[in-house]
């Protein structure tokens, strides 16, 4: 039966805001809570992928247990690589800790020879250079903008030094340049590191001729050097390791979100049951006047749909706004990663409206199944 005028689904909700808004509010908070937890959790692997994203531009190879292996590895890769190589460079590295929302993570300052430094910067983290490049053999570094933001340093500051146990270098290593790039990069002169730091072992970075062939080179290197005295560092391996590392964590997250949904659904079911009890007189009257159970059910479910869908949409919008605020105020100043439009986070909230709607439907149907309007008009039920 079509319903015109006063008994549209929105009428009750609009005129009983004191009752309908708390229901919407509970759903909004539940959606914000779930999406917030998942988005913050997702920010960890996102940070790993972002911070170490520089490694997708090349494949890194280090010898294992035999410093002489570097030359053999270079020979193998230059002779057998399945794609044309643009450059193979010998590098060394220094450890530096960067901050993340779960503590300190290791980050490598690459020690590059003068002839490789410009090439590296152009290929890995191109961007405008503020300041200057390091001088050969000098304790000077160039960092990209996100690294400097993360460390809270500026040009002229010292990042490595004799008084820094976790970032040791026998001389104070100053920042002389800042690259305005979103890629996390840090470079230092090769000669300085070779003269002052252990181990005296070169690693290799191999660049494919074209970026699209880099993945092929990475996979080949991984397979080719399996069982050899060499270790391969490739971005796809980092991605795979990250996914595996977080698989168990996401299973725990599934359980937590599941329990949260159950608790919220039970609470909402009880609230809906109370609200329906308060409307028994209305439903009895309408049925006595001649409204069918189906028409009343449809109307109540229309109201529930509006509450649940409205609550979910409002929750997603509020979560999006909140995550943007969190990113702007807490994450961005430290260059921490957070995606306010994290689809996985919003996907995780879908069980909230589905479970609440299912419970609401079951509650309403159970209540109407044996409902007798005469009991209402005779005031036996009110």
């Amino acid at each position, binding site marked *: *039966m*079509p*319903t*015109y*005028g*006063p*008994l549209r689904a929105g*009428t*009750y909700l609009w*005129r*009983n805001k004191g009752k309908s808004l708390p229901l919407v509010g509970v759903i909004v908070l539940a959606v914000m809570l779930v999406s917030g937890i998942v988005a913050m959790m997702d920010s960890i692997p996102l940070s790993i992928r972002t911070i170490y994203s520089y490694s997708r531009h090349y494949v890194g190879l280090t010898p294992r247990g035999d410093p002489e292996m570097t030359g053999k590895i270079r020979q193998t890769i230059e002779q057998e690589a399945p794609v044309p190589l643009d450059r193979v460079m010998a590098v060394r590295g220094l450890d530096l800790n960067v901050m993340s929302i779960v503590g300190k993570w290791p980050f490598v300052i690459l020690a590059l020879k003068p002839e490789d430094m410009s090439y590296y910067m152009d290929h890995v983290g191109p961007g405008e250079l503020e300041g200057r490049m390091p001088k050969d053999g000098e304790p000077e570094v160039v960092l990209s903008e996100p690294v400097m933001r993360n460390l809270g340093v500026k040009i002229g500051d010292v990042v490595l030094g004799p008084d820094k146990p976790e970032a040791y270098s026998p001389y104070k290593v100053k920042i002389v340049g800042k690259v305005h790039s979103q890629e996390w990069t840090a470079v230092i002169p090769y000669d300085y590191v070779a003269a002052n730091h252990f181990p005296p072992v070169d690693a290799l970075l191999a660049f494919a001729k074209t970026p699209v062939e880099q993945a092929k080179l990475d996979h080949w290197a991984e397979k080719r050097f399996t069982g050899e005295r060499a270790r391969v560092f490739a971005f796809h391996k980092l991605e795979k390791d990250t996914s595996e590392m977080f698989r168990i964590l996401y299973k725990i997250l599934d359980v937590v979100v599941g329990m949260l949904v159950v608790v919220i659904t039970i609470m909402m079911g009880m609230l809906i049951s109370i609200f329906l009890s308060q409307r028994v*007189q*209305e439903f*009895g*009257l*309408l*049925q*006595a*006047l*001649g*409204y*069918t*159970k*189906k*028409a009343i059910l449809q109307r109540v479910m229309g109201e529930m749909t509006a509450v649940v869908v409205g609550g979910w949409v409002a929750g997603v919008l509020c979560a999006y706004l909140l995550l943007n605020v969190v990113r702007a105020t807490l994450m961005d100043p430290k260059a921490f990663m957070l995606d306010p439009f994290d689809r996985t986070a919003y996907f995780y909230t879908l069980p909230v409206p589905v479970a609440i709607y299912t419970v609401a439907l079951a509650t309403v149907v159970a209540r109407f199944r044996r409902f007798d*309007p*005469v009991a*209402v*008009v*005779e*005031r036996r039920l009110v």
Partner: protein
Amino acid sequence: MTSLESASLVYADKDGDVFACHDVSLEVRPGEFLGILGPSGSGKSSLLYLLSGLKVPTQGRALYRGRGLDELSDAERSRLRLQTFGFVFQHPFLVGYLSALENIMVARPDQDCRDESMALLEAVGLGEKSHRLPHELSGGERQRVCVARALLGGPEIVFCDEPTAALDHATGIKVMDLLRSHRGTGSLVVVTHDPTMLEGVDRAVHMAEGRVL
């Protein structure tokens, strides 16, 4: 128009079956004002529920225009009540979040009846209170809204179950006057224990212990 043929309404009780109505035969004729009198517990309300299709006889038959109400589905009986009958109950039940005017419009959900509802509200003397919510009206005013709701659309029969029981005598008389004067060509069936409310009645039946005397 609507009638009962040897109709009984039996409720199961822990002490056995209880006859709310027992072997009742009664017809509501077109346009008549039928009064149903009897003491409390005599089965007057149950009789009204059977005549109006709110209850189906457990024995015997209830008929509308010759067709058994038990042959109709629950939805068909509901449609019959909504489109053909009007109801005034003992307590002035209104939808709490709707205005007086909207509470009248509730009786015809499938059509735009705002003007007719307003005219009826003015006829029962509440034209200026059309936007008031039920809790802003007195008991008598609420029952007058219920009368207007029952009369909307010119129903064939208006069923009234003790419509004045919750009101003082003077207000009760006014409500009955409204029902009599605005029912048009429709029938009026009034259940009451107070004979003074049945002034102008065409026919009155008396009930006792579930039977028409």
